[in-house]
């Protein structure tokens, strides 16, 4: 996980959205790496900036109202933010592919599955018609769809939700990308289907040795697939580190509170810990640490100074100086 080996490395990324009388700082200084063949999870609640982060990697943030206010996105050591539209087009789909949350609306209802996968193949590669069909069938087989020859002739509405998501994955894989960004790909699916899709992603990632940036709000899903986790809150990364480190020994009060507030059978009869208040509106974030109004460990400093990243070793960082070695962590101003 050394920096020079990272496939994607996001450095101090800032994305703001301007409307006439307010600025929403959706992403406010986010840095993380995705190494080769690694699955990194961006976890967070709605409005924490996880989807905007992913969209800026794809170069899909609508500008205006959006605006990249700073930072770098290094993919294979090249800054994607310097690319123009046609350069970005070559990267998109070819080297970085994306899977969306809603499988029904991400597929065009008037074309067959075969047309759509074929299109994905032909945009970036030259292939004859029969090669395209052959590759499409292989892709569908890879994502575990039975009878691929028949399915290629089907329209999206003839497939179930899980099958559509498999088709979306097949389309993302069409050009052998190095990095797949999956934006809540299982949120709209049933639990049993979700388990299947997660296992599918896992096998495909191993088979094709690609990297995955997985975006989700579900800590259960994270525990199943992640190598490393970045916990986001209100546009910043609150904590990042290896899966076990973050989930078993969380160092940021937000992560700790989230884990404590998850209901399950073992906690029956006890009162759940609940984080008071609501997620802040990105346009009206509190000063200092954005989590301090809801935090149990708030001290005077939290509302005045911006907390610095504290290093717990082995790539485990948390942005909370209060809990670091008895409050000896550093603060930014």
């Amino acid at each position: 996980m050394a920096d020079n080996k990272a496939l994607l490395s996001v450095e101090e990324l800032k994305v703001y959205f301007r409307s006439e009388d307010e600025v929403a700082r959706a992403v406010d200084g986010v840095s993380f790496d995705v190494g080769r063949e690694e699955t990194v999870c961006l976890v967070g609640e709605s409005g924490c900036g996880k989807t905007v982060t992913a969209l800026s990697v794809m170069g899909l943030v609508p500008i205006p109202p959006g605006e990249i206010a700073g930072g770098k996105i290094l993919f294979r050591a090249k800054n994607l933010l310097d690319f123009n539209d046609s350069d970005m087009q070559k990267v998109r789909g070819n080297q970085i592919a994306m899977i969306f949350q809603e499988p029904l609306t991400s597929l065009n209802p008037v074309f067959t599955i075969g047309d759509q996968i074929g299109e994905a193949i032909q945009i970036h590669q030259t292939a004859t018609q029969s090669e395209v069909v052959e590759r499409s069938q292989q892709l569908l087989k890879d994502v575990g769809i039975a009878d691929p020859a028949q399915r290629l002739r089907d329209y999206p509405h003839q497939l179930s939700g899980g099958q559509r998501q498999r088709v979306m994955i097949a389309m993302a894989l069409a050009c052998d990308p190095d990095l797949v960004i999956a934006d809540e790909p299982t949120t709209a699916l049933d639990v049993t289907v979700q388990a299947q899709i997660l296992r599918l992603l896992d096998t495909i990632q191993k088979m094709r040795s690609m990297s995955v940036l997985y975006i989700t709000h579900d800590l259960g899903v994270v525990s199943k697939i992640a190598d490393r986790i970045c916990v986001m809150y209100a546009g910043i990364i609150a904590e990042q580190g290896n899966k076990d480190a973050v989930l078993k020994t969380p160092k940021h009060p937000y992560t700790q509170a989230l884990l404590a507030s998850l209901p399950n059978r073992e906690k029956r009869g006890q009162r759940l810990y609940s984080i008071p208040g609501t997620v802040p509106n990105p346009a009206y974030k509190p000063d200092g640490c954005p989590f301090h109004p809801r935090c149990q460990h708030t001290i005077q400093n939290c509302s005045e100074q911006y907390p610095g990243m504290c290093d717990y070793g082995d790539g485990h960082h948390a942005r909370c100086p209060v809990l670091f070695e008895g409050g000896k962590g550093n603060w930014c101003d």
Partner: protein
Amino acid sequence: MNEMGSRNATILQVDNLKKYFPIRRGFFQKITGWVRAVENVSFKIKRGKTLGLVGESGCGKTTVARLILKLLDADEGQILFDAQDITQLDEKEMKPLRKEMQIIFQDPYGSLNPRMTVGQSIAEGLKISGIHNRSKQNQRLEKLLKMVGMSPASSDRFPHEFSGGQRQRIGIARALSVEPALIICDEPVSALDVSIQAQIINLLKDLQSQLELSYLFISHDLNVVGYLCDKVAVMYKGHIMEYAPADALFDHPFHPYTHLLLSAIPDTEHKIDAELNATADEVSNTLNPPSGCSFQERCPLNEERCKHNPIEFEKMGPDHLVRCWKVARNGSY
């Protein structure tokens, strides 16, 4: 079913409930088939207790909720509310009973009238329960808002000014305005942010112990159900497959479908049952169900006998019913 002594302790008893929806096609709107949304559903809710109704999307759990509230009319079967059968009542006879049963919805955005202030929405219920006096209404309104953890000042604001969790609280206050005995919670936390879920779950628990409420808790999230419910009914394609006290269900699940659901919880504590999952592809619809067991297409234990005979409940322990002849014979899954 013949427990005369404990009869008053049962707030709701559903017996052999059935609801089919016609599918109409063509110019004359001829009925070409039936969607068997709810078939032979029976359960009981004791006063002050919580029954969890678990299943995937489309299994008929929301239809059951609407049948109980008489927003839909049942085709067959009985719904005994406080020992009174409500299926035969007309709108006028139903009116006093409506106050006894209320519902909380999944989508906090669609469940409040956007053109009414919070106070007006809740006052609708107060008028129904005969509080017309303005100052008494305000008094009660204040108390209800306090009860759900909102300040009385929110009453003259509109729903769009609140976050999802806050709206869910307002929805709960509206349900409480008529002082119901039973509240049907239709996935009340699944659309909420993780940090807000615990707040609402705690609120529901507090209200239950303060007001002696009974809940029918509909959910697809087994973690929440395991935390909150006393008894659980697992539903699949309109049938209840397993019906047991929560502890028994989680510790000794019998039905293959229950096993599938439990193994699909994305959580480190449950291992994936690979063999079970491999056979368990999702199945299209409830349109033309096979005769015999409705789970047979996904079931690893599927045998010839499953295809023909209608499958009856087998008693596996005190209060533990399972709709599977094979696990009943083997004594375990």
